C-alpha cells in the first residue's frame, strides 16, 4: 500500500526530473537552463528524501540550490543573459544526441540487468541518522574528508586568484 504511494511519488518526480533535465540542455535561454537545473536538483533532493537520506537531501538543497545555482545565475547575469532566446548549441547536436542515447541505453540495460530483483525495503527503516553519517565521516572517511576540505580551500583561493583583476593592469 505504502509502496504504491511511493511509486506514484517516484514516477511523478521522475517525470519532473526528466523533463527539467532535458530542458536544461535544450532550452535556448541560459537563465531558463539554470532554473530548470534548480528543478532537477530539487527533484533529486526529493528522491533523497524518498530514500530516507534526509541529511543528503538538505545538503543538496543548501549547497546546490542555495549556493551553486545562485553562483551560476550570478555568473550568467554578470556575463550575458539576455531575455529571450539565443542559440547556444554547436553543430554537434546530432552526435551528442546519439551518444547520449547510446549511453542511456547501454547503462540502463546493464544496470537493470545487474540489479534485477534487488528491492529497496522502506518498511521499518527510520532513515539514516545524521549521527551515523557523522561517525562514518569522522572515523573511516576522515582522510577523504580532510582532502575534500583542502580541495575546497584550494578552490577558494584559486577562484579568488583567477577572477581577481590585477592591480595596475587595464583589462581590454
Amino acid at each position: 500500500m505504502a509502496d504504491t504511494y511511493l511509486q506514484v511519488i517516484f514516477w511523478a518526480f521522475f517525470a519532473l526530473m526528466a523533463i527539467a533535465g532535458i530542458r536544461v540542455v535544450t532550452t535556448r535561454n541560459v537563465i531558463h537552463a539554470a532554473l530548470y537545473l534548480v528543478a532537477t536538483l530539487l527533484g533529486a533532493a526529493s528522491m533523497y528524501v524518498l530514500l530516507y537520506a534526509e541529511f543528503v537531501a538538505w545538503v543538496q538543497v543548501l549547497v546546490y540550490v542555495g549556493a551553486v545555482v545562485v553562483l551560476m545565475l550570478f555568473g550568467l547575469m554578470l556575463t550575458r543573459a539576455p531575455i529571450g532566446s539565443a542559440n547556444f548549441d554547436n553543430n554537434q547536436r546530432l552526435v551528442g544526441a546519439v551518444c547520449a542515447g547510446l549511453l542511456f541505453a547501454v547503462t540502463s540495460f546493464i544496470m537493470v540487468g545487474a540489479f534485477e530483483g534487488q528491492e529497496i525495503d522502506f518498511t521499518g527503516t527510520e532513515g539514516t541518522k545524521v549521527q551515523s553519517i557523522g561517525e562514518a565521516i569522522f572515523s573511516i572517511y576522515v582522510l577523504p574528508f580532510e582532502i575534500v576540505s583542502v580541495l575546497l580551500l584550494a578552490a577558494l583561493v584559486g577562484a579568488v586568484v583567477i577572477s581577481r583583476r590585477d592591480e595596475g593592469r587595464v583589462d581590454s
Partner: protein
Amino acid sequence: MPVAYFLVLSALLFSIGVYGVLARQHAVLVLLSVELMLNAANINLVAFSAMLGEAGVPGQVFALFVIAVAAAEVGVGLAIVILIYRNRRSVDIDEMSLMKW
C-alpha cells in the same frame, strides 16, 4: 521498490548531461550539464545506500563528498568563465582555441 528505477533515473540524467556537454557552446551551460552528471552519480550512490540499509551509510558520505567537490568545481569553473568573458567578451567554448597548437 526496485532499485532499478533509481538506476534508470540516474542513467537518464547522466546521458542528458553528456548530451549537454557535447552539444552546448556556452561555457556556463556546459558547467550546468556537468552538474547534472554529478547529480546522476549522487542518485546512484544514495539509492545503493538505501538498498544496503544500515551498511549503506558510506554511500551517503560519498554523496556528500561529491556535493563538496561539485561546489569547488563550480567555484573555480565560474571564476575561469568570468575571466575569459572579461578578456574576450565571449563565453563560447568552441572559440576558445587559444591553447590549440
